[in-house]
């Protein structure tokens, strides 16, 4: 997976970068599925590997062919110093995170047990993810839909040249 990711950054040809990015999304969805987050894996596979790849390719076909080769300046000295430091700092902080599936972690103590126990009686929906997303957190999802709607309108206004 990191091979595909590094390849997508390193490769000079934009077409192969797009395809490598799609395969990276696919591997990432396999990772989500193996962690038990099937809904997230589904979205990652459909949107990341499918739709985003198609949109990138259409953008590539829309631009001039001479733009498909990348000119990249070498990274500056500050970048080379700051980013490894940031990585070390993040790894140091990740040591204090609770373990995967830890029943005593704050995330699984606060309100998750209520959702897991009550959601079927409340909503007659076996999939807890759906009931949390569409019922308990419905206002969130509505505003997310507004965001997608706005993105579509903005794309249509910016990209469509004909009156």
């Amino acid at each position: 997976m990191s091979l595909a990711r590094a390849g997508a950054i390193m490769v000079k040809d934009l077409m192969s970068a797009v395809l490598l990015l799609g395969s990276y999304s696919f591997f990432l969805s396999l990772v989500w599925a193996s962690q038990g987050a099937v809904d997230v894996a589904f979205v990652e596979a459909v949107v990341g590997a499918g739709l985003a790849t198609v949109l990138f390719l259409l953008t590539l076909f829309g631009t001039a062919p001479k733009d498909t080769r990348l000119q990249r300046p070498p990274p500056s000295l500050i970048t080379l110093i700051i980013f490894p430091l940031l990585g070390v700092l993040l790894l140091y902080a990740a040591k204090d995170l609770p373990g995967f599936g830890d029943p005593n972690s704050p995330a699984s103590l606060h309100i998750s047990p209520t959702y897991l126990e009550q959601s079927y009686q409340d909503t007659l929906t076996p999939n807890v993810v759906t009931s949390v997303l569409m019922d308990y957190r419905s206002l969130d999802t509505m505003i997310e839909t507004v965001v997608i709607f706005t993105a579509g309108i903005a794309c249509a206004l910016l990209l469509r040249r004909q009156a």
Partner: protein
Amino acid sequence: MIRPHDSIIVQTLGRFLVPVVQIFGLYVLFFGQYGPGGGFVGGVILGTGMILSVLIFGHSGSRGQIAKKVLHADGVGMLIYAGVGGLCMIGGGEFLNYANLEIPGLETASRRSLGIVLTQIGVAIDVAVTAVSIVFSLSAEEVIEDSINV
């Protein structure tokens, strides 16, 4: 402007695949309550099916015309979602509290289940139309070049 693809293999496979993709999208949309899936993924799959038909049969094909007509539905998904919320308020509860949907002969739990289905349909329509509209706006630029060249 996307023209129809020349290859007969692509045409035949597309004619077979597009309905399968659409039906799978509907399945994902309505079985989001029982398995993985839901409004967002279902909408993306529905939109991808339409994008596939546009890519294979071109803008001017009959399926491309259907996809172009679908663009007029922009905002209907939002309207359904917010409308369900408004119906809940009319029923005397909070915004988007599906237990207040005024449908006779239903338990509170099945009302909430119905509310989830309705809002998921709203999300799916919105996402599908947005995906198709982005593809149309990305590929519309070449129309002008063609018209200039002609």
